[in-house]
């Protein structure tokens, strides 16, 4: 039972990885361009993907950010579901990803001050081209982080 479950999960993960590769390739599998947003948490403190990190996804509306969905990263450090629809053009605008970093490192047993130096990391960015793929990774430790437009 457990083996089968793991097998299915691996297949699903493999499928997701392929989909990501297809989305960022120069020749999309389908005529209609795929537009999506993906993220990836790398725990550079322990040298592993950040598994079980809560990530909130917001879209800016006027002066405030409105929560679109909350996801938890899988064993590969990636969100198990696309943050934006896979098909169709991306909605242009300003977005925010909030990574619950301190909760994660606490769970991993890392010694943190109280309050933690870094609690929730807010990454604010714009989607400015509806046909492109946006990958926004977070390289994270309890004392530092890095983010960039990935692929």
């Amino acid at each position: 039972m457990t083996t089968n479950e793991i097998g299915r999960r691996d297949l699903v993960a493999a499928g997701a990885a392929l989909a990501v590769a297809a989305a960022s390739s120069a020749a999309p599998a389908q005529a209609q361009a795929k537009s999506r947003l993906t993220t990836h948490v790398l725990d550079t403190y322990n040298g592993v993907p950040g598994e079980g990190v809560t990530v909130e996804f917001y879209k800016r509306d006027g002066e405030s950010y409105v929560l679109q969905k909350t996801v938890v990263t899988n064993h590969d450090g990636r969100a198990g579901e696309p943050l934006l629809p896979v098909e169709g053009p991306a909605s242009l605008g300003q977005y925010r990803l909030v990574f619950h970093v301190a909760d994660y490192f606490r769970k991993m047993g890392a010694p943190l001050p109280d309050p933690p130096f870094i609690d929730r990391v807010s990454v604010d960015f714009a989607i400015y081209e509806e046909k492109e793929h946006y990958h926004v990774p977070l390289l994270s430790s309890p004392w530092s982080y890095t983010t960039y437009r990935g692929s």
Partner: protein
Amino acid sequence: MNHSVERRDLLIGGLAVGALAAATSPVAAETLDPHRITLHVLDVYSGKPGANVTVDLSVLDGQTYRLIKTVSTTVSGRPAAPVLSGEDVKVGEYELLFHVADYYSGLGVKLPNPPFLNKVPVRFAVFEPAAYHIPLLLTPWSYSTYRGS
């Protein structure tokens, strides 16, 4: 003309030496309060300090960040003085908001509209009275931050 250029060079040189001394020399450090928040913008896209970057400092007050002050970096990529110092460095949650797109637009860097990164928030806690140095290593497409010294 020559004289004014030389004076400007000397001034810039003096600022650079001053920044170096303030950051690394224990003698200069004595003039700095041991409790402080400082920052440094490194433009790793241009390979130089990020000068004239506007930075807003806010503190978490209930559920919202309340603006304390707005500062600007000098030619060394640092504000002329610590952003907060002494008794003002209270335990709490703070945000430094770096006006990144304005900075790169000012340098003539072509950015998309809207820019991928506009204002970069760095949120961190002062968990005890101490020196908190917050560098930002920056390009129009990426940034890194960490607790520096």
